[in-house]
C-alpha cells in the first residue's frame, strides 16, 4: 500500500461511512496505528522484567517462542501473499504500472535462473562454468545480491510507506485532503526516516567475507535531528491549518503518524521491544485490515456485502486461508520433496527476501485505483 491513492478499485465512496476505521476504531487503534507493539513492549520491559546482564546470546528456550513463531508465520509472513494473490487475479493494461511490473518480471528471471541453476547443478558439476548461462547468471546474480544487501532499508521504506498510505486513507475517508505543503513535508520526512533506519537499526547487510559493522552514529544523529525538525514542521503546518480553517486530520491518522515517528527516531535500545512486535502486530495487521476493508467494499459494490456473522466468517476465511496455505506451501514445499529439515539459509533468509520484494512491488500496484 505504498501509494497516495490507496483505494479500492470498486467505486466506493468512503465518505459514506461514519467511521474512518478500516475494521473498527478500537481494532485500528490497537493493530493498525501501533498501540499493541508499544503496549506489549512496555509490558515486556516493565511488567515481566528483562535481564540482559550475565546472559550470553543463545537460542531462546521458552514456551513463548512457539506462539510467537506461529503468529509470525500465519499473520506476518502470510500477509505478503495477499497482495501477490491479488496481483495474479487482476489484469492490467500494457502501460499500467509498467516499471513496477518490469521489476516483477526481473524477479521471475532471478527465480527462473535459480531453478535452472539447481537443475543444472544436478545434471552437471557446476552450471556457472557454462559460458552463456554463467555470464547472464552473473549479471542477474550481482543485481540480486545488491537487492539482498539493501533488504533492511527496503523493508524500512515498505513499513513507512504502508503506514503513510493508510494515514492518507484515513484522511480521505474523513474528507481531509493533505495540502501540497503537507504532502511535501511528509514525503521528505519518510525519506529521512528511511535514512535514519538505514544508518541505525536497519543497516545494509555487508558481504559475508567483509564481516564489517559500519559506524554510522554521526549520520544517525543527523538524520534523527532532521526527522524531528520535519515532523515539527508538519505538525506546525497541520495545526496552523486546523486553527485557521477548522479542518483537522482524523485521530487515527495522527496516532499512526506519531507511533511510526516514535518507532523510527527513539533510540533502538529503547524501541526494540516495540520492534519485536511491530512487524506482526502493526505492519501485517495493517495489511490484513486494508485487505479486509477493500474486500468488504468490493462485495458491497456488487450487492453482496457480508451481513451475518457466518457470512463475515466465510469471507474472512476466504481471504486469509489461501494466503496462509500459499505461505506454507512456498516456504516449506522442499520438506515434501526431501523429507528432511532444511538448512538455515534455505529456510529463512533468501526465499523470504524474494517473497518480500515480490510483495513490495505488487503492493505498489494492487491497492491503487485502476
Amino acid at each position: 500500500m505504498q501509494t497516495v491513492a490507496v483505494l479500492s478499485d470498486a467505486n466506493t465512496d468512503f465518505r459514506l461511512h461514519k467511521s474512518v476505521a478500516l475494521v473498527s476504531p478500537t481494532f485500528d487503534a490497537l493493530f493498525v496505528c501501533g498501540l499493541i507493539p508499544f503496549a506489549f513492549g512496555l509490558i515486556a520491559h516493565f511488567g515481566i522484567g528483562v535481564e540482559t546482564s550475565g546472559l550470553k546470546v543463545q537460542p531462546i528456550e521458552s514456551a513463548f517462542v512457539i506462539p510467537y513463531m506461529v503468529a509470525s508465520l500465519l499473520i506476518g509472513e502470510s500477509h505478503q501473499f495477499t497482495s501477490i494473490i491479488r496481483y495474479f487475479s487482476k489484469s492490467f493494461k500494457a502501460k499500467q504500472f509498467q516499471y513496477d511490473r518490469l521489476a516483477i518480471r526481473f524477479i521471475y528471471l532471478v527465480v527462473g535462473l535459480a531453478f535452472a541453476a539447481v537443475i543444472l547443478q544436478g545434471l552437471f558439476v557446476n552450471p556457472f562454468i557454462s559460458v552463456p548461462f554463467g555470464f547472464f547468471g552473473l549479471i542477474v546474480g550481482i543485481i540480486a545480491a545488491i537487492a539482498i544487501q539493501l533488504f533492511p532499508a527496503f523493508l524500512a521504506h515498505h513499513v513507512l510507506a504502508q503506514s503513510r498510505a493508510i494515514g492518507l486513507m484515513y484522511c480521505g475517508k474523513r474528507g481531509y485532503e493533505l495540502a501540497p505543503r503537507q504532502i511535501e513535508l511528509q514525503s521528505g520526512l519518510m525519506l529521512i526516516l528511511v535514512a535514519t533506519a538505514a544508518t541505525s537499526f536497519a543497516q545494509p547487510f555487508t558481504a559475508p567475507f567483509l564481516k564489517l559493522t559500519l559506524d554510522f552514529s554521526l549520520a544517525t544523529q543527523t538524520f534523527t535531528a532532521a526527522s524531528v525538525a520535519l515532523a515539527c514542521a508538519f505538525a506546525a503546518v497541520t495545526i496552523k491549518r486546523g486553527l485557521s480553517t477548522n479542518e483537522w486530520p482524523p485521530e487515527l491518522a495522527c496516532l499512526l503518524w506519531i507511533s511510526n515517528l516514535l518507532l523510527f527516531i527513539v533510540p533502538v535500545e529503547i524501541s526494540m521491544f516495540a520492534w519485536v512486535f511491530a512487524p506482526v502486530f502493526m505492519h501485517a495487521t495493517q495489511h490484513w485490515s486494508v485487505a479486509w476493508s477493500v474486500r468488504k467494499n468490493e462485495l458491497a459494490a456488487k450487492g453482496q456485502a457480508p451481513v451475518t456473522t457466518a457470512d463475515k466468517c466465510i469471507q474472512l476465511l476466504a481471504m486469509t486461508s489461501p494466503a496462509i496455505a500459499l505461505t506454507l506451501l512456498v516456504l516449506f514445499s522442499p520438506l515434501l520433496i526431501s523429507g528432511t529439515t532444511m538448512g538455515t539459509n534455505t529456510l529463512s533468509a533468501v526465499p523470504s527476501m524474494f517473497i518480500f520484494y515480490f510483495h513490495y512491488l505488487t503492493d505498489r500496484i494492487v491497492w491503487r485505483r485502476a
Partner: protein
Amino acid sequence: MTEAKTPTRSKEYMIVFVSVCVITMMSGTVANAYAVQLAVAPGAPGELRQLKPFSSTFFGSTDFLKVEPSPAMRLPQGKAFFSQLATAMHSKTHRVLWSSYPASIRGQTFSGITKDDVSPLDVGTSSAGW
C-alpha cells in the same frame, strides 16, 4: 439477490476447503519435520515419536527421538523469552529490524534452536556471516 450470492458462496466454500486441506497437510509436515526443535524450545526433555511417512510401511513408521534441551534457563518462561531476545538484540542493534522479521524468528525456532553457536535472532544470516 439470493441467486447472485449462491455461486459466490460455493466458490468461497471451495477456496476455504482446499486451503484448509493444504494448511492442515503442511502444518503436519512442518510440525513433524521440526518436532525436536519445537519440543526443545519450551525446554521439555523426554522422548518424541516422530512420524516417518512412507518409509517402511504404507502408512510409514515412527522413530523415537531423544530431546535434550540445553540446561541454560532457570528463569520463568516469559522472562526467559524476553531476556534472551533482548540479549540477542542488544548484541546487534544494527540488525534489530531484521531480527524482528518473521523469517528470522522462524529460522531461529526451526533451525537455530539446537545450535549453541548460532545467534538466536540472527539465524538466516549468521551462517553467512552477515
